[in-house]
C-alpha cells in the first residue's frame, strides 16, 4: 500500500518517476492501470494533407451530439468570422475539433504593378484607376517566374502569380491528450481521468463545473458550457474505443490528415512523413507535440505543421503548470509558516494591556 504523501511528488517535491513532468513511458500504468491495458492511442494530424473540409468537426459533433456553437459557449449565434474559412474560431466546449485556416503570402521582391480596370473611367465617384505600367509588369513577370524557380519551389506551396506566392494552411486542432495533462492535474473531483487507452476524458456524471481545468490547460482546449455548467472536451471517442472503433473524426477524415492509432506507431509514421517532406524541400515542416521531452511529456495527439505553432494558435513551448507544483507548495508552506511566525511574534511582541 502506497500512502498519499509518499506518492505525492506534488507535495514532496520529489518526482523520480516523472509523475508531474518529463517523459513517461506508460501513462496508463502511471494512472493505475497496472495490469494488462491497451496500448496508448493517439492522433497524428498531418496538416500537409489537410483540405480544410471540416468533416472532423461535423463527425465529432454528430457522434458526441454537441450543440451548435459560436465558439463562446453560447448557442444559436452564428456569423461570418472573417478569419478565412474558419467560422468555428477555436476549440471549446461545443467544438472538440477546430480547423484553422491561415492564408499566407510571400512577396517576391518586386515593385507591385499598378492596377487599372476596364470600366472604371466613367465612374467618377470611384477612385481613379492607375494606368497599368505594361513594361514593368511584363518584365517582372518574365524575370521572376521560370521553370527552374518553380521546381525549386516548396512543393507544399501552390503558386499564384508573379509578384507573390500564396499558401493556405489548414490544420485540424484537437485536445492533445497530454502525457502530463494540466486539466487532469487540476480537476478536484476526479471527473477528469486518464483512461486505460492513455487518453484524458471528462466524466460528465462527476464534473461539478468548478472550471479549474479551463485555465490549467496550456493549449486552451477544455471549456465550460455556460448553460450546462460542466466542462467538455474531446474524449477521443472513449465510447467508440471501447467498441473497437476509431474516433469519429479520424474515421471521417477524407485525406487521412487525421490518423488514429497506437501512439508509438503514429510517431514512427510521423517521423517518416517528416523525413519525406524535408527531402522534398518542405523546409517549414516540423512535428509538434511529438517530443516526449517537451513541457507536457509529449502529446497523445500531435501534429505535423508547416509553420510555427503560434501561427495555428498553438503555444510554441507549452509547459504543464504542475511542473512547478512542488515549488509552489513549498512557497505556500513557507508563506503559511511566515504567517504563523509573524502572528506569534506579533503576539509575543505586544504588551498585554
Amino acid at each position, binding site marked *: 500500500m502506497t500512502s498519499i504523501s509518499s506518492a505525492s511528488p506534488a507535495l514532496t517535491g520529489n518526482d523520480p518517476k516523472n509523475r508531474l513532468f518529463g517523459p513517461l513511458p506508460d501513462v496508463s500504468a502511471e494512472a493505475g492501470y497496472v495490469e494488462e491495458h491497451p496500448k496508448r492511442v493517439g492522433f497524428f494530424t498531418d496538416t500537409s494533407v489537410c483540405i480544410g473540409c471540416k468533416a472532423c468537426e461535423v463527425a465529432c459533433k454528430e457522434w458526441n451530439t454537441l450543440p451548435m456553437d459560436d465558439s463562446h459557449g453560447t448557442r444559436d449565434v452564428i456569423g461570418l468570422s472573417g478569419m478565412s474559412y474558419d467560422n468555428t474560431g477555436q476549440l471549446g466546449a461545443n467544438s472538440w475539433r477546430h480547423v484553422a485556416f491561415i492564408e499566407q503570402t510571400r512577396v517576391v521582391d518586386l515593385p507591385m504593378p499598378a492596377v487599372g480596370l476596364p470600366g472604371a473611367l466613367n465612374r467618377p465617384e470611384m477612385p481613379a484607376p492607375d494606368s497599368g505600367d505594361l513594361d514593368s509588369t511584363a518584365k517582372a513577370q518574365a524575370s521572376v*517566374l521560370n*521553370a527552374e524557380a518553380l521546381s525549386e519551389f516548396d512543393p507544399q506551396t501552390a503558386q499564384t502569380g508573379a509578384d507573390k506566392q500564396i499558401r493556405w494552411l489548414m490544420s485540424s486542432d484537437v485536445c492533445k491528450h497530454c502525457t502530463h495533462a494540466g486539466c487532469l492535474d487540476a480537476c478536484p473531483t476526479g471527473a477528469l481521468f486518464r483512461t486505460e487507452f492513455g487518453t484524458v476524458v471528462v466524466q460528465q456524471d462527476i464534473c461539478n463545473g468548478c472550471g479549474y481545468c479551463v485555465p490549467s490547460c496550456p493549449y486552451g482546449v477544455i471549456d465550460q458550457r455556460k448553460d450546462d455548467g460542466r466542462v467538455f472536451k474531446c474524449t477521443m471517442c472513449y465510447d467508440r474505443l471501447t467498441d473497437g472503433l476509431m474516433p469519429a473524426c479520424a474515421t471521417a477524415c477524407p485525406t487521412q490528415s487525421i490518423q488514429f492509432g497506437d501512439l508509438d506507431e503514429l510517431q514512427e509514421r510521423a517521423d517518416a512523413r517528416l523525413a519525406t517532406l524535408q527531402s522534398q524541400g518542405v523546409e517549414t515542416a516540423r512535428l509538434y507535440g511529438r517530443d516526449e521531452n517537451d513541457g507536457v511529456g509529449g502529446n497523445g495527439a500531435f501534429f505535423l505543421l508547416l509553420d510555427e505553432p503560434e501561427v495555428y494558435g498553438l503555444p510554441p513551448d507549452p509547459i504543464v503548470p504542475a511542473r512547478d507544483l512542488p515549488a509552489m507548495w513549498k512557497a505556500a508552506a513557507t508563506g503559511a509558516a511566515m504567517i504563523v511566525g509573524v502572528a506569534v511574534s506579533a503576539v509575543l511582541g505586544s504588551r498585554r494591556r
Partner: protein
Amino acid sequence: MPGLGASFGRGGATNFLEDLANSDCIVIEGSNMAECHPVGFQWVTEAKARGAKIVHIDPRFTRTSAIADLHVPLRIGTDIAFLGGLIKYVLDNDLYFKDYVVAYTNAAALVGEEFVDAEDLDGLFSGFDAESGHYDEASWQYEPEEAPHSSSEDPTGAAEQDRTEQHPDVKDADRAQAAGSGGPPIPAKPKRDETLQHPRSVFQILKRHFDRYTPEMVSEVCGIEPDVFEQVAQWVTSNSNRDRTTAWVYSVGWTQHSVGAQYIRTCSILQTLLGNIGRPGGGIMALRGHASIQGSTDVPTLFNLLPGYLPMPHSLQHHTLDDYCADAEGKAGFWGNKRSYMTSLLKSYWGDAAQPGNDFAFDYLPKISGDHSSYQTIAEMIEGKVYGYFLVGENPSVGHPNGRMNRFGLANLEWLVVRDLQMIESATFWKESPEIETGELAPETIGTEVFFMPAASHVEKEGTFTQTQRVLQWRHKAVDPPGDAKSDLWFYFHLGRMLRERLKDSTDPRDRPLLDLTWDYPTQGTDAEPSAEDVLREINGVGPDGRALSSYMQMKDDGSTSGGCWIYCGVYADEVNQAARRKPGREQGAVASEWGWAWPLNRRMLYNRASADPAGKPWSERKKYVFWDEEAGEWTGPDVPDFEKNKRPDYVPPDGAKAQDAIGGADPFVMQGDGKAWLFAPSGLVDGPMPTHYEPAESVVENAFYKQQANPTLERIGGPWNRANPTRSEVFPFQVTTYRLTEHHTAGGMSRTLPYLAELQPEFFVEVSPELADLRGLTHGDFATLVSTRTALEAKVLVTERVRPIKLRDGTVVHQIGMPYHWSYAGISTGDSANDLLGIVLDANTHIQESKVSTCDIVPGRRPRGPALLEFVESYRRRAGVDSGRVGLNGRAPDDAPMVKGQSGS
C-alpha cells in the same frame, strides 16, 4: 456529356476515382475537387504521396490549390485557350503518343473538301446560318471511302434523316446529348491517310486549327505567365507516354459555360493525343455534383432523352419506329442495335400492348418539337402556357440562375407540387420571396395552388444511385419515413395508379398509353410502397424465358425481350441485384469489380482495350491493364474488358458487317461508328467540329483570337426578367463566378437547414482581391452590393489574396469576384441568393447555363430594399443601355399583363 460522348462514344467519366491513385500527373481544371468532392480527393492525395504532380487550374486559389503542386490562376472562361495551347505544344513538339494516335483515333481520316475552318472564317466554321444561329454540319463530314448511301439498306430513310437532322428545331432538341452512350452517327467510313500528312487529314486540320494557340497567346488570353504554361505543358507531356499517364479532372467549372461542351472536347483531344484514354491513371474524370446525376441522365428525366440515351422521338423525324431507327440501321457500333434497345424499352413500358403490328406502341410516345428544356419551360410558365409543375427534390428558386425569373414562372402556374424534406424557397415563393419585398409579387395576386408533399430521405427508401463513375450502388432501407413523408417511387406509382383508375372507362385513344402501361408493381408494407427492386429488374430487362437478361447483347428487336434502360442491362443478371453487392474493397483487387455494378456491363474503366497496343500487348508493364491472352483466346485483366471478350486484336470486319461486328479488333472506342476516338467531330456537336476559344457571353475582354466574340450558337431566352449584361460594358466592369463550398450543398436545402453545416459557413459572402477592395472601397467583413441587369444582391466581403486580378498584356486588369451560391432566405444560415444575379445563357449543345462566368458591378454597403431595389437595378440597366427589366403582374411582360390597379409596367 456530349463533349465526352462525341469524342469517345459515351458521356460517362472514362475512368474511376480509385484509378486516380495510379496517375503520374493529375490536372484538376474546372473543378474544385478538394472542396466539392473531398472524399474522392483522397485518391489525388494518394497519387501525390506516390509522387504524382498535382496541377490545379482555376481562377481562384481554393482548398484544392492548397494541396496542389502548382496552381494556375487563369482568367475565368479561358480554358479552351489554355488547353488549345497545350494541344499546339504537343503537336509542335511531336509529343503525342504516335502509335496510339494513328491506331486509335480519327487522326488519319480525311475531311471533305467543303470544310472551312474557323481559322479562315474569323471564328466561324463553314455551314453557319447567321439568321437561325445554327450550323449545318454537312460540310464537316469525312470524305467517304465510297459513295455515302451505297452501304445503307434504307437509302430513303437515311436521306430523310440527314435532311431533318440539320433542322433548327431538331438541333434545339439537343441531339448532342444522345451521344451519352453511343457516338453520333456517321454516314460512312472515311478515307484515311495513315501517314497523317494529307492536308485534309484530321491531324493536319487540327494542327492548323490550333496553330494560333501559342504560349504567348495563351499567356495573353488567360492572363498567366508563359513559364507557368510551360511548366504545366512539361509536366503533362513528360507524364504521358507508354510508361506514364496523366489524368484530367473536371466538373461543372467546365460544363456551366456557353462553350461548356467544347471545353470538354478540347480536353478530350489533348488526352487522346497524349494517349491517356482507356489507360490506368489516365482518362478524363467527370465529377458530378449530385448523388445520382449520372443516373439522372442514364435513366433520364430529361426532355430529349429516353433511358439509355435513346433520343426522345422528334415530330419532324420520327413518325414510326423505322424512322426512329433509320440513322442506325446497318451502321457500325452501337447504332447497329438501336432497334433492339428501343423495342425492349417499348416492351418494358407497354408490355403486351406493344406488338410488331402496332410498331411496338412507338406511337404512344409523345414527340418533342424543339427545345423543351427547363429554362424554356420557365419562360412558357411566365406566359401562362404551363398549368402544373412538379418539383421533386429540386429548388430552382435558389439553385437556378436568375431566381427572379424562376419565381415568376412559379407564380403563373395553376398548381405546383413540391416534394422535399424541408420547406424550401421554391415552395414559399408566394409569401417570402425577394419579389414580395420589391412589390413585384404578392400572395393576393398569385393564383398558384401549392402542394408541399413531404419526401422520404435516402435512408427511408431503397433504390440505386449512379455515382460519378457510373457505378450503381443499392441503398438498403433503414427506417420508415416519418409522418406523411413518402418516397418519390411511392408518389409516382400511386399517382399513376390513380390516373389509370380515373381513366379506366375511357375510350379516348389519347388515354391508351396510360391504360396500357405496365404498372403492376408489387407493393409492400402498410403504406403500399412499390418494390424498387422490381423496378430495377424491369430496367435491367427480361428475356423470353422470363429471366433477367445479363447483357444488352441479348436484347432483340422482335419484342421477345424487354428492358427499361439498355445500358443498365446486367444490373440484375442472374436474378441478383448486382448493385447491392458489397464485397469489402479490402478483400478484392484495386478495381473492386464486386462492389456495386457499373454500366456498361460492370466495366469500371471505359475503352480499356486502349490500354493495350493494337496487337493486344500492354503498352508497358507499368501501365498494364487489359490485354489479349492469345492462349485463352480472350481479353483479360483486372477489369471487365470494354470490348468483345473473344474478338481478336487482328480482327478486320468483313465487308457489309454491321453493329459490333463492324468494329475492328484494334478499335477500342466500340461505341463510335468507326471505333475511333474523335479528334475532329464531324457530327455530335452543334457548335463546331473542333473547339475554338470564344469569350463568355458576358465578358469584359475582347476575344483576342477571332472577330467572333462569343459562341455564335449560344442560346438566349429573352424577356424583361432575363436581360443580358452587354459585353465589355463599363457599367458591369468585373467578372463574377459562382461556386460551391465544402460545407454546403447546392441550393442549400440539405445544408442550410442543418445546424452543424450552417454554422461552418454561416453567411453569404463574396471573395474579392485586395486590389478590387481598394479600388471599390470594400471592407473585409462588411457588406457589399453586387449588381447585374437582373438584380442586386448584398453579401459580406471576404478580402483575400486567393482571388487575383488578372493583368492582361494590353495593360487592362480583369477583376474577378468569387460568389458561392448556397444561400437564400430559408434555413439557419441565410443570405441573398447568388444565382439571382445571373442571367440565363445556354450552351446550345446541352442547354446548360453559363453560371460560371458573368459580369457585375460591386459597391460598398447594403443593397436598397423594397421598390428602391428595382429602381436601383433599373438605373444600371439604363446606364448600360439595356432594355427595361420592369415587369407586369406576377412577372409577366408589361404589355400583355392585365392591368391591375396601381401596378403597371413602366
